[in-house]
């Protein structure tokens, strides 16, 4: 265990998800189970015409979102050759990443957003006053301000269920175990095994999203919710190398201090001169 990735990521005892996109069949049972367990209202009945994705995005009342990507081959396909693995139809059940160092948590001015004993990131609904600062502070676009109650909501990793030794509703409902729940250390090892296995099958693009190489970069220190992808993260609407926004707080304040010093000197000379 001398690998840097294992030293900087996930705290001991941290739990999270491993979402293996190669196992996802796009049934959206996770979305439904999440809404049922957490008592979240429906988002409407619009059809987006974006493949089978009629959910669109994570939001205040959508804590799991299945993305559907239909890739089109640019090179001609040989009809007599079997593809090494899977089709060009990619599905990913997106969720809050429960960052090891979370931008939303660091931004929150009320202390409503906390790290739980499971190292998950939870918004305390009795504290949140809806300032909305965590919304643009999340590099993954997860939290959202609800118009219904004026507070911000996001996945709690089923804090209430995990406390009672139950796995989160989405993982429980997933029929193919595309969503796996467990200790992050074990999930990480499993993710790496799976990537190796996939690459052995000829899936050259297989990769883990959520370690310090991809997804958990730039001061975030890794994600507690990992993904196995088969293409660039952007294809799934995930940023490749997000940064922890609050690492800019101190440099920003220092540069402002520098500007203040210059402006102060300018004003002093202005009021001394004739």
């Amino acid at each position: 265990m001398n690998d840097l990735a294992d030293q900087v990521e996930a705290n001991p005892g941290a739990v999270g998800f491993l979402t293996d996109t190669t196992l996802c069949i796009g049934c959206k049972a996770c979305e439904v189970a999440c809404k049922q367990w957490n008592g979240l209202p429906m988002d409407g009945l619009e059809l987006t015409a974006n493949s089978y994705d009629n959910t669109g995005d994570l939001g205040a009342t959508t804590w799991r979102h299945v993305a559907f990507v239909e890739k089109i081959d640019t090179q001609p396909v040989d009809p007599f050759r079997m593809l090494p693995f899977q089709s060009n139809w990619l599905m990913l059940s997106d969720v809050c990443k429960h960052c090891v160092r979370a931008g939303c948590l660091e931004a929150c001015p009320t202390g409503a957003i906390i790290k739980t004993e499971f190292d998950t990131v939870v918004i305390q609904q009795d504290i949140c006053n809806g300032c909305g600062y965590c919304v643009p502070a999340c590099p993954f676009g997860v939290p959202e301000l609800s118009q219904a109650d004026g507070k911000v909501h996001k996945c709690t990793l089923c804090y209430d269920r995990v406390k009672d030794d139950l796995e989160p509703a989405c993982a429980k409902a997933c029929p193919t175990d595309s969503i796996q729940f467990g200790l992050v250390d074990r999930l990480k090892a499993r993710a790496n095994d799976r990537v190796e296995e996939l690459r052995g099958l000829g899936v050259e693009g297989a990769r883990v999203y959520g370690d310090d190489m991809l997804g958990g970069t730039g001061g975030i220190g890794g994600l507690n919710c990992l993904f196995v992808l088969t293409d660039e993260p952007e294809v799934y609407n995930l940023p490749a190398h997000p940064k922890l926004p609050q690492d800019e707080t101190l440099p920003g304040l220092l540069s402002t201090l520098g500007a203040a010093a210059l402006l102060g000197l300018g004003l002093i000379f202005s009021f001394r001169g004739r």
Partner: protein
Amino acid sequence: MPSERGTDEHEAGEAGTDEREAGEAEPRGRRRRREQRPPTDYYGIPPIHRAHWGGLIEWYFFLGGLASGTYVVAAIAALFGRPEHIMVVRIGRYLAPLLVVPCPVLLILDLGRPERFYNMLRVVKLRSPMSLGTWGLVGFSLLAFLSGGQQAGRDGLLGGAGRTLARLPARVLAGLGVPFGFFLGGYTGVLLGATAVPLWARNARLLGPLFLSSAVSSSCALIQLVLACLPGRHEESESALERGELVAALGEAAALAAIHVHSGALDAPLTTGRLGRLHAFGAIGCGIVGPLLVRSAGRWLGLPPRPRSILASALALVGAFLVKHVMMRAGAQSADDPAATFRFARRDGVPDAAGVSGATSGTPAQSGYQPPTDAARA
């Protein structure tokens, strides 16, 4: 807003054509198109969420900047200036508390749950600019009211309470208030910078100086405006304020120039469309160039000092609001642009899983992905 991100789409289109020609020799199954082109997006759905902030917060940025700037100008004039600047000191000390009063009101009204505003006061978080700003605003308001009260007492207002307030140490208050004032003028830019919004985050170290310079220049303008409306002439103070305004406006121009250079293609919201025009003609033209022109050229043209000062100050104040308005709206556009977010999240040069070192990289990776914990598993 598809029309607002023409730059990125144009580049993406060009890169795509090149690759399709070069891609013939590539082995089947390698998706070179995806690897070399500025990254694709997912049905145009933004990968990050924009801030909900609108007019209330823009007015807060504007009024908070004016409150902080007027306080700082008055305090520096009192501490370092010559005695004939007493009117500047007096106006600044009266304006700062008046201007800071609407600030918490605007902030509270913007909350999703205004009745819970006091939860802002239950923690101090040094890495959260909004938490720092809350406490900064509390401290500044206190000092601004004490300084204003002290001045009012000295001026024989407020009766008995005024006589007590007049005994407060004005210089100590001014010395304490200046750091708070500078903080309140600049932290708003740091607050925008400490987000995932590409345009703001790329300029996290420039927005603070920009908003602070804008606060100081517009405050010099506001005090000149008040001086011009008062009876009598204060030529010494007017020229001192003009000098101060010039210094701050130059700082503002420098910060804006640096933002454009530093942003690269991410500054598209500031250069295109309605917002781009508002930025060029409103924030820069009306706010920075306009007052300088009126104050200098107006003198040559023989415009009387009073209307000259009023016109120039009004232009500067409109411009100072527009700087905040444009930057806020540009952030929303930037957050809504998937290409901007992906570009920003690739710039650090760290090779990603496929070995591509960012959107600017021209060489597609042939070497594959190495699972990071091979060593750990052995």
